[in-house]
């Protein structure tokens, strides 16, 4: 792998890092499988593209995107808690609605940002570094800052209630906490992160596209699982860091697959999805194999 490809993979890992952390919050912490993300990622991209085109500063565009993402997530949360719609279905409903909404926001399916000022250009100019170095650095800083705030938040009273909601709903309800509010807020927060990620991705690739959300949840889950397997998840801080690093590992794995050359037969570009699926399966199976070998070894010692 060339240094460009490696730095590029790290850059993509961080760009999608906020999304992965968002997916972690719903999927693992709230125990809420949330497919809204396939719609809220392009939502963030659309909002930021429209904001930038209208002349707003790119940083503000990212904040506006996460605000829109929060609202989208909150809608899923309300559908689930107030209207008793199954979480999976509630999130699918929001996701498909967002497709039309994103088209409305942009007024077209693809909005170019080529030639516009983005956070990427701004940071490259401010830091004086080469773009392929400054961009991963910028996205990395954004992710680290977001994680720091998140870790702080999860140790506040509200944060602890948030953590407990997914673990033991009954217990936390008996403590007088309204879990509905927590779920609405939590799914909102998760999608705010996802939409911010969408804004970064769009500004990085030079266009917002209504179809760019396809497969977001797969990438998110794969990253979460790879991160957990490789880096562990004993404490919430460690789990969040693992999710972020998982995002990077996932993109590095794709970069490796893209660069694979094994003679004439070998792997063709069309095998990319298969390779990605295999990587995730390996990540999922590894802990089981490890546990089994441990048991067998322990049995032998006896």
């Amino acid at each position, binding site marked *: *792998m*060339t*240094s*460009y*490809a490696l*730095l*590029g*993979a790290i*850059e*993509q890992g961080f760009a*999608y890092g906020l999304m992965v952390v968002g997916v972690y919050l719903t999927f693992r912490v709230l125990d809420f499988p949330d497919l809204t993300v396939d719609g809220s990622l392009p939502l963030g991209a659309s909002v930021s593209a429209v904001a930038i085109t209208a002349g707003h500063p790119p940083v503000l565009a990212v904040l506006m995107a996460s605000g829109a993402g929060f609202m989208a997530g909150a809608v899923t949360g309300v559908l689930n808690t107030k209207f008793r719609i199954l979480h999976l279905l509630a999130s699918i409903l929001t996701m*498909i609605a967002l*497709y039309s909404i994103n*088209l409305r926001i942009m007024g*077209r*399916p*693809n909005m*170019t*940002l*080529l*030639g516009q000022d983005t956070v990427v250009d701004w940071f490259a100019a401010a830091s004086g570094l080469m*773009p*392929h170095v400054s961009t991963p650095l910028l996205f990395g800083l954004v992710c680290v800052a977001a994680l720091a705030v998140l870790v702080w938040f999860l140790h506040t009273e509200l944060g602890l209630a948030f953590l407990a909601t997914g673990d033991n709903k009954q217990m936390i309800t008996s403590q007088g906490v309204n879990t509905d509010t927590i779920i609405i807020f939590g799914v909102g927060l998760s999608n705010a992160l996802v939409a911010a990620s969408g804004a970064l*991705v769009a500004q*990085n*690739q*030079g*266009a917002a*596209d*209504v*179809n*760019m959300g*396809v*497969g977001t949840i797969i*990438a998110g889950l794969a990253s979460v699982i790879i991160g957990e397997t490789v880096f562990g998840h004993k404490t919430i801080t460690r789990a969040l860091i693992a999710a972020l690093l998982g995002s990077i590992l996932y*993109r590095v794995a*794709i*970069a490796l697959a*893209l*660069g694979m050359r094994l003679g004439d037969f070998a792997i063709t*570009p*069309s095998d*990319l*999805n298969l390779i990605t699926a295999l990587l995730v399966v390996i990540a999922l199976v590894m802990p089981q194999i490890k546990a089994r070998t441990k048991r067998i070894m322990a049995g032998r010692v006896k």
Partner: protein
Amino acid sequence: MTRLLLTVAALCLLAANALAAGSYTVSVTQIVEHPALDAMRQGVADRLRDRGAEVVFNVHIAQGNMGTNIQIVNQIKGEKPDLVLAIATPGAQAAAQKIQDIPILFTGVTDPVSAGLVKDLQNSGGGNVTGMSDFSPMDQHVALILEIAPSAKTIGVIYNAGEPNSVVLVDKLTEEAAKAGLVVQGATIANSSGVFQAVRSLVGRADVIYIPTDNTAVSALESAVKVCTQTRLPLIAADVDSVDRGAIAAVAVDYYKMGLQTGDMAYRILVEGVAPGDMPVEFLEDLNLHVNTKAAAAMGVTLPEATITRAAKVVE
């Protein structure tokens, strides 16, 4: 003596050729695998080979995933090719955003201006990007529709509002149709399973159905053929493959030929050293008309003799 001279001359020619067309690397970014897109890639490769340029291709396909799409650009930066060939809009946009020091040649992009790839079709911005547009010649499509259904007043069009190219095409169709005094009725679909219902919704509201080069609509063309046959509505397509599948006619870009012409542009950049910024966006002038007489009969249309004789291919 003559033989010796000839040999020397031949050797000189060979040497000149080798000098002119050395060995080059071209990195390809393509958003999905798709017969039309693959045909373009093949066309570029064939033309470069036929003109004597020795080219190694690194082909990357994003499998429709935008995250992978941009990773491919980083992969390509590391490969340091002599030329980036971007097939279809998303790959071209990502390449143009990230790569400034390598020539980028796009092809199969419908509207390169609104995609932000070039400032205008003359490419007056003078950047490192140029290429070919596959824009359907809408004036010719409207003319073909009128040739087949002369009494038509309303054109029904099926398309996916989420495909950037389709929206541009339908806008252009509406404009060209208005010039001919026709009205366009759109029915949008979100996925290919919506085609059947969308065509049905147009029955009674449209005199002829037109399917543009919209991936979603074209992938479920058969259901449109079925409805049109049942209700005897003429169905015109924008790509020639759809004629084999049951549309009455299409006058269209041949994607392989488009690849050949893109290959000529690649040759100019690689071998002749022309800067992309000095090359305007090109269109394919050489279009093919295909007709399907069996489909015409089934949809209650008698094709004019002139149309059939003019066709490059007649499906019976």
